[in-house]
């Protein structure tokens, strides 16, 4: 079954063709990095206008890259839940138009389910059940993935997502946007133990996250040093901050895996591209005899291939959306 996936929930306009939920025939992603740099972050109305301009071209590119036409498409899968409302609307408007004109089924999906499937798409052999950490600029969740499309939410962020903390610290340190890759790079020569930053809620029994306190601690320390005229070793600050985030994410995830008595961890979302996060997860899991999986780097950030893969799984369960499909910016992941 050939599925066209569409994803416009935040700042990437994306379309992809995926066969049988496993084989990516093409993926087209137009990033709005120029706008992000100009505005220092995502501005919903500006992003939505850009989606409207790009959506047709991106879908055409996905078709052309795969050497297919819309006549070959057997279903359309689209992100309809969680994200920026005006951005989600553009993808859903496009998806239902194609579904109607081509008389093929339509399915609306939750954005986080897409991220969960990014890793399933990268590793078809990944066993169920497993614990999935989804972490990006917009979300930060621990999910018990019982089987395909059956989830139990274990924890989520109470304030900033980890990726958001990366962005805000990078912005504060004048490193640019997006923050994840620049801090990752800057941290390489730095000493992660140079500064001791808090590991927020690491001891806390819940599986919720909170990164706003860590962000404030880094900013206060920085201002303090400036006020005292001390030298500022940026790589050390970046590495120490990154280490605090990584420690927290790894500790909480592993505690969830142990609580569920499982041996498999899936780490997904934009921050799962972070090299230090991958390294610490890999080392810690190896010591504990736990298998850890990361998506291909191309599937870490928002993309439509993961939406098509999730759509295929849902359609195999007999699910469909009708042409009245609407968007729900704050919908829970559901099960």
């Amino acid at each position, binding site marked *: 079954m050939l599925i066209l996936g569409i994803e416009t929930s935040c700042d990437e306009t994306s379309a992809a063709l995926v066969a049988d939920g496993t084989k990516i025939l093409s993926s087209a992603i137009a990033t709005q990095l120029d706008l992000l740099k100009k505005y220092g972050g995502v501005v919903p109305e500006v992003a939505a206008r850009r989606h409207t301009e790009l959506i047709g071209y991106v879908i*055409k590119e996905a078709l052309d890259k795969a050497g297919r036409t819309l006549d070959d498409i057997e279903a359309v899968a689209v992100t309809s839940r969680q994200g920026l409302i005006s951005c989600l609307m553009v993808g859903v408007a496009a998806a239902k138009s194609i579904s109607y*004109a081509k008389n093929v089924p339509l399915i609306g999906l939750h954005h986080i389910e897409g991220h969960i499937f990014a890793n399933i798409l990268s590793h078809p052999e990944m066993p169920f059940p497993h614990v999935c950490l989804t972490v990006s600029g917009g979300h930060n969740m621990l999910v018990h993935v019982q089987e395909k499309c059956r989830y139990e939410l274990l924890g989520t962020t109470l304030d900033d997502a980890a990726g958001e903390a990366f962005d805000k610290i990078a912005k504060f340190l004048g490193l640019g946007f997006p923050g994840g890759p620049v801090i990752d790079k800057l941290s390489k020569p730095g000493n992660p133990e140079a500064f001791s930053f808090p590991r927020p809620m690491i001891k806390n029994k819940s599986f919720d996250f909170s990164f706003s306190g860590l962000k404030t601690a880094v900013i206060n320390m920085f201002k303090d040093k400036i006020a005292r005229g001390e030298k500022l070793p940026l790589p050390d600050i970046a590495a120490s901050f990154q280490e605090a985030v990584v420690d927290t994410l790894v500790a909480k995830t592993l505690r969830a895996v142990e609580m569920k008595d499982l041996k498999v961890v899936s780490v997904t979302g934009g921050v799962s591209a972070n090299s230090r996060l991958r390294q610490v997860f890999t080392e810690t899991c190896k010591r504990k005899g736990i298998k850890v999986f990361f998506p291909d780097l191309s599937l870490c950030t928002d993309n439509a291939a993961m939406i098509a893969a999730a759509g295929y799984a849902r359609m195999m369960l007999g699910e469909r959306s009708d*042409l009245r499909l609407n968007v729900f910016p704050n919908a829970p992941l559901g099960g």
Partner: protein
Amino acid sequence: MIVLGIDTSGYVNAVGLADGTRVLADVAFPAKTDSLEQIVDNIDSVLKSAGLSLEDIQGIGVGLGPGSWTGIKVGVTVGKMLAFSADKPVAGIPTLEALAYAARKKSLFIYAVINSGVGDTVYAARYHTSKNGVSQEGEYFTGSIKDLVPLINEPVLLVGGDIKRYRDIILKENPLIRNKVKALEALPSGAAVACLAAVRLARGMKDNPLSLTPLYLKESTAEVFINKYKVK
């Protein structure tokens, strides 16, 4: 040439059908925040009522706005993706032009007026009736309805939503033009969009569906901020 016209810029899902400039159907479905939810269903029901399907039409007209930013993003995306998917020629029609078309009168100049959603700021444009419908004179206007007053120096017909209130504001500014200003209440019309698109498409003036974008006539708040403060 049977053309489907849609316009979701004005808190209605306006869907119409025209055969050339002959109106076959013109329905305005109420739509507040559910324009996305309803629009494809609305199109389907208008087509079905006319005994047609998407394959039977020869072109699509899309109201580009201005109006509700959300509404026009939905309508333009649906219009262009229907055109792309069904391989039909498409023509984008400014909603102000469609309003003027629906009110065309030979003797009067027409000011089509659309509420911007902020205070008494409106989008407007001036038209005169021409052979194939209406022709725009001058640029689009975005500003206070009061700033239109000095521009009214001959009899005009104001057309748009909430238009009596706008006429009252104009006459309060200048009571001397009382008998020069008529007002006609009108919502965006799918049929008007379809007729104007049919005329354009018959002359070979089709738009590239992939590049079709809304006519906002106003920068988003963030763009205003950036341009005002030159944030880098």
